[in-house]
């Protein structure tokens, strides 16, 4: 990005996204509260808030974690990825309400500082069933805070995309902490099999989706080890194997390359989007630009530069066509370097 920052760059899809997300959150909490007040009218207001926000956040976290692998398995899920950060921030807000109410309810107005009480009231760190589960939730909340606080694109450029990505991979650490927080906490008391089955389905569902998506990705990824090489060029595929406006990707000598076919031409650029490392090779050429499938960032195929006013640049590669085959030179050019597209001659 380079046009100046706005708080939230609203557009039609984001509004729709948030509307349905909060509809879901609202529906969950409303149904939960109504049934709670109906079946257990003696519940206190604090307990209702604590439980409703905790469960809503935990369910939402599962959805957030499922979006990544789901959209790798089926691109029709990609719209869920588009505004995932709003889902993340919403989840953090729910978790924060839960945490704040818990600290006030269980630790405040006592002979010890509430924050310190979270860590010392129950000191049985070496036991499983009596483990001080609050500490796990607290640490998870801190991770979620760092992620929510840095969700704006401002942070992507100021922390650098690599550090930002690592920081936001923290969601998996947070998830693990929260699963343990629930298992050693609430579910030690609310120990009905229904709850435990849900937790197992959630955990193994998320794990399974990731493993499955990883394997299918691996299958798709062309690792070119035993292919023909000549003068630094490597044979990738036949020209007509690439669909028009689409790409074939190749992983050669550690370089992740996307080779696009458009307007009777071929160009190759780095396969990784500058924004959030999205797979450009799964994108399309739209209005003459390579368009990232994740958030719609765009690059010109012949020089890897984002059209003005944007300033992102990716590496480019030399390509050639020999007897109907596409060959690419995996030695990258400087980011944003112009490379003459190769014209496909009609056979």
């Amino acid at each position, binding site marked *: 990005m380079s046009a100046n920052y706005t708080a939230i760059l609203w557009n039609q899809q984001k509004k729709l996204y948030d509307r349905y997300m909060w509809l879901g959150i609202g529906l969950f909490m409303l*149904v939960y509260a109504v049934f709670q007040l109906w079946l*257990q009218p003696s519940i206190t207001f604090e307990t209702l808030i604590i439980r409703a926000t905790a469960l809503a956040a935990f369910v939402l976290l599962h959805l957030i974690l499922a979006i990544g692998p789901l959209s790798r398995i089926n691109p029709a899920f990609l719209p869920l990825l588009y505004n995932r950060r709003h889902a993340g921030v919403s989840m953090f807000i729910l978790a924060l309400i839960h945490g704040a109410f818990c600290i006030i309810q269980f630790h405040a107005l006592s002979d010890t500082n509430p924050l310190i009480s979270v860590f010392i009231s129950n000191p049985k760190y070496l036991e499983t069933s009596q483990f001080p589960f609050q500490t796990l939730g607290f640490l998870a909340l801190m991770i979620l805070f760092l992620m929510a606080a840095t969700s704006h694109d401002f942070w992507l450029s100021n922390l650098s995309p690599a550090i930002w990505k690592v920081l936001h991979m923290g969601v998996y650490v947070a998830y693990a902490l929260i699963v343990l927080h629930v298992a050693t906490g609430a579910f030690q008391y609310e120990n009905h099999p229904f709850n435990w089955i849900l937790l197992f389905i959630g955990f193994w569902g998320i794990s399974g989706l990731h493993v499955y998506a990883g394997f299918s990705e691996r299958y798709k990824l062309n690792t070119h080890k035993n292919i023909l090489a000549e003068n630094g060029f490597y044979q990738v595929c036949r020209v007509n194997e690439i669909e028009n406006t689409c790409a074939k990707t190749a992983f050669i000598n550690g370089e992740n390359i996307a080779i696009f076919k458009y307007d009777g031409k071929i160009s190759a650029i780095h396969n990784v989007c500058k924004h959030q490392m999205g797979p450009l090779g799964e994108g399309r050429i739209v209005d003459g630009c390579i368009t990232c499938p994740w958030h719609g960032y765009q690059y010109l195929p012949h020089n890897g530069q984002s059209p003005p006013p944007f300033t992102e640049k990716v590496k480019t590669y030399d390509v050639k066509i020999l007897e109907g085959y596409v060959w690419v030179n995996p030695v990258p050019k400087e980011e944003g370097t112009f490379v003459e597209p190769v014209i496909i001659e009609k056979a």
Partner: protein
Amino acid sequence: MSKKEFYIGWQGKMPENTRKFLKRFLWIAMALIVVMAIGLVFFEKPFKKHFFNFGQLDQITGVYYDEPYPFILTDYNAESGQAKTVLLVGSGKFGAKGIMDKIQDKSGALSGIRITLEGTLISGDGKTLLELTNGTDALKEMLNVELIETPAPPAPENVTLQGEILDPKCYFGVMKPGEGKIHKSCAIRCISGGIPPVFRASEGDSQDERYRYYLLLDQKGNPCNKEILPFVGEPISLQAISTKMLDWDVLFVNIKDIKTQ
């Protein structure tokens, strides 16, 4: 041109098939959400029918005693010697001792005197407590000195019991649930803050859960709040000497005789 649809977030409209696909997904997700929300409530443990009269101040008149924990005796029946004990607790996670000490600094010793206290009622399973919500303003009236003759306590006996140490303020009404793992830290803070520890022993079977409550004191009959903190809020078994103090069962326990399970 590829026939597969390509979604771009900043475009106004979503491709048609993607839209249909997500609409179906949304319906399924919403249905799952509803089922989960209902299930999570349905399989919840029922809350105890204990009662905290939040926001409502009541006045209770009875004869005050300091030891072992501040309490007042109400409904005294001279013939049978029966009376009802109302345990006093402070606001937040504190016992009533601090407040009663301050009150007595001004009023003089109150032990054995019939007084009226104002606070918030907590009651459940036959036990009553009064939270001195307004601190030292709780004392509303000092009446006469009154001698209460209580029946001699039954002979002490050795008992081995299984159960959980609770803080009675939360358990008998303020919190739902006020027991078990979720509430463990809170119970530790409450007992650490001077609220009298109560031992709940299970009676009856799992179908018909009935409980018997004991006030927990050390072997000399003194408070042992700090010493028992490591055993609060989890299943324990203990050996102790059991007796009665009016309508409360009491245990005199040696900390060494408490075992976690």
